[in-house]
């Protein structure tokens, strides 16, 4: 049996129809059947009963972003479906299934003239007592895609096990009904999967939390905020299991200071927030710079400014993360470039924080954080993470002694003879407040040296291809750029991708090396004011002929958009 290498499915519905649940099961079924996948969500402004759309892209090869167009749309109903204009890009050969006969799809769907089929979910679920429309829809979609029915049954059983045998049986009936309906459809099977290498199904927020734990984080304090809350909710019970603790603070001012306290006490710590919370924390992140306290602050970016668009992504917190601290405050800013890389970058960021005794701000974003991906099992990493501490301080122990690396041994409370007062006031090497010229210069120099001289290795960026035209990008824009490059330059002869993982401190020499032999450069980012481009110009000696493609969120980049842009640029 042949089939498509990739399919993008949308399931929409409202009033608690359960499309998110159905789509998540679909993704898991595909993962068990050996496919890669990605699920993203979109919803109306209501907390309950609102319009919801789940998008699932399934493929025989790794998926970083949603497909350009929707190949299969199942609408349990069409209530306010026009709200998803811009997201429901229906392919012209798409199959659209309406679960509510007699109601009409909105123009955003019919304009593409897809094949339209009706399935009467209401009458099916009434005839078969206890069956749910969303489970029938799941069965239909899974059937149309040629996914193995027994795997769907197995997952539905697992999902409903706690509700008893009767409910499980109703669930299986519903799936069976869906498969029967699928038989009458033009099937659109996925190509056979290439086997079952170990895969994970994970969201960017979970990956970030797990990465930080692998890096040694055991204490966290935070205040809930969309779209970062899932990191906290994932961590809270697991930290507890690992002997650690997550405290819900009264606000972000408290959460950042709680982790400063915990880190001063010797623990590897983190907080997670989004733009508004990062703004509140910035004074105290400066304190951690001055007092040389290791911290990991994860900012899951959302549309800004102000409250902005909490449930949509944007790469517009770069400036506040890099430049938002008052005074000359050297610190580190990192950014993951895929869901799986959220794990790597969080672990690496913890390593950087602990090694340099410095705050690290990791810029993740909503499109990673709240997306669920089926990814290859990430490699085990073992950084030699070690905070430089003093076990037996000498007579005249100096907490802020100037050293070659800039990092000085830290006395952890409880260590006899190591007593010192950590201070946000400028201080001398002992830690005693000083406003003297020499102390200020020496300590500024020390704090800058430790982050600029650190060996970041190859992790500063991910580089692919060696064509003469380079695309420089970062974070969640990397996926669409990579996909677009594969499309227009499958052999990597024309293009080169440089995705920065270390945003600050700048590595201009590394970038220059990576750009060697490049004739043309294009920077791609999701920010109206092109914050990344400005940063590259100011700090990375970006050649003046570099071009720019920047636009704001909330619309995510798709591969076709970038590919068209690149084709145009290359011609």
């Amino acid at each position, binding site marked *: 049996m042949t089939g498509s290498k990739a399919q993008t499915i949308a399931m929409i519905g409202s009033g608690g129809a359960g499309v998110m*649940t159905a789509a998540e099961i679909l993704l898991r079924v595909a993962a068990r059947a050996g496919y890669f996948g990605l699920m993203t969500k979109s919803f109306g402004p209501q*907390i*309950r009963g609102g319009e919801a759309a789940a998008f699932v892209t399934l493929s025989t090869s790794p998926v970083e972003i949603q497909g350009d167009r929707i190949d299969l749309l199942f609408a349990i109903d069409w209530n306010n479906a026009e709200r998803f204009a811009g997201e429901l890009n229906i392919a012209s050969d798409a199959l659209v299934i309406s679960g509510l006969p007699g109601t009409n799809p909105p123009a955003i769907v019919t304009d593409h003239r897809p094949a339209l089929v009706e399935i009467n979910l209401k009458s099916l679920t009434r005839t078969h007592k206890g069956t749910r429309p969303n489970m029938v829809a799941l069965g239909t979609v899974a059937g149309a895609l040629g996914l193995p029915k027994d795997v769907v049954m197995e997952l539905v059983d697992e999902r409903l096990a706690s509700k008893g045998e009767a409910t499980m049986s109703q669930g299986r009936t519903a799936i069976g009904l869906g498969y029967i309906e699928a038989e009458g459809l033009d099937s659109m099977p996925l190509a056979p999967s290439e086997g079952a290498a170990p895969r994970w199904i994970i969201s960017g927020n979970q990956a970030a939390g797990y990465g930080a734990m692998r890096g040694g984080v055991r204490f966290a304090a935070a205040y809930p905020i969309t779209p970062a809350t899932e990191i906290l909710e994932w961590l809270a019970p697991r930290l507890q299991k690992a002997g650690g603790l997550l405290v819900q603070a009264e606000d972000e001012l408290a959460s950042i200071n709680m982790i400063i306290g915990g880190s001063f006490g010797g623990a590897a710590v983190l907080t997670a927030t989004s733009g508004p919370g990062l703004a509140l924390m910035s004074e105290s992140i400066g304190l951690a710079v001055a007092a040389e306290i290791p911290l990991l602050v994860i900012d899951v970016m959302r549309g800004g400014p102000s409250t902005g668009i909490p449930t949509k992504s944007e790469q517009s917190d770069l400036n506040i993360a890099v430049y938002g601290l008052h005074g000359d405050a050297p610190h580190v800013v990192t950014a993951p470039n895929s869901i799986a890389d959220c794990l790597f970058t969080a672990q690496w960021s913890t390593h950087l924080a602990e090694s340099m005794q410095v705050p690290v701000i990791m810029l993740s974003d909503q499109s990673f954080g709240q997306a669920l991906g089926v990814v290859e099992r990430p490699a085990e990493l073992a950084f030699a993470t070690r905070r430089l501490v003093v076990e037996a301080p000498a007579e005249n122990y100096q907490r802020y002694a100037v050293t070659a690396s800039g990092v000085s041994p830290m006395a952890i409370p409880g260590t006899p003879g190591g007593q010192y007062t950590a201070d946000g006031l400028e201080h001398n090497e002992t830690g005693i407040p000083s406003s003297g010229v020499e102390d200020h210069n020496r300590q500024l120099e020390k704090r800058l040296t430790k982050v600029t001289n650190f060996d970041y290795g190859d992790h500063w960026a991910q580089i692919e291809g060696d064509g003469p035209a380079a695309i420089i990008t970062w974070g969640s824009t990397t996926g669409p750029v990579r996909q677009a490059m594969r499309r227009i330059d499958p052999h990597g002869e024309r293009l080169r991708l440089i995705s920065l993982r270390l945003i600050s401190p700048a590595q201009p020499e590394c970038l220059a090396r990576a750009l060697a032999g490049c004739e043309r450069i294009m920077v791609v980012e999701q920010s109206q004011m092109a914050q990344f481009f400005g940063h590259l110009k100011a700090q990375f000696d970006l050649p003046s002929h570099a071009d720019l493609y920047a636009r704001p969120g909330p619309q995510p980049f798709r591969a076709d958009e970038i590919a068209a842009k690149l084709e145009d640029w290359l011609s």
Partner: protein
Amino acid sequence: MTITDRATLLAHAYAIESEAAERYEELASQMHTSNNHEVGDLFSKLAEIEAKHAAELSLEHGAANVTLAATDYSWGSLESPEVIPFGDVHHLMSPRQALTQALAAERRARDFYEHHAANIPEGDLRTLATEFAAEEAEHVRMVQAWLSRLDSSNDEEREDMDQPMPL
């Protein structure tokens, strides 16, 4: 408190009907927002009936012109008897659940008039109160009739298949 004059009775009657109409409209809007259009339409229909009733009171008796200070209404509770409390609805409520609530509201209105009619001495005022009670009793029968015609296959406990959305 006993109602002793026509103006006070009309003020109460108008408040009962207009507040019920307003509440049904608000609940209809809530249901439509949560995409429960079936119950939303039902509440809209009830709002229309109550609004019509209020308009008739006004037309026939000039009731809209009589108002009392908030504390002078003798509901014996926080709200007038014919409104469904905001806390008693749910975004997935079934038409049967909605009509059951509406039936209780109509009964409360009927009981209110009956209670007052019983405490008013014979005369025009008592006649008017009894008339109002009879109208509400008619509404009670109407809602009962709707209930009995409902398709029972639609009654099963509904549950939200998804988690609440983070905003």
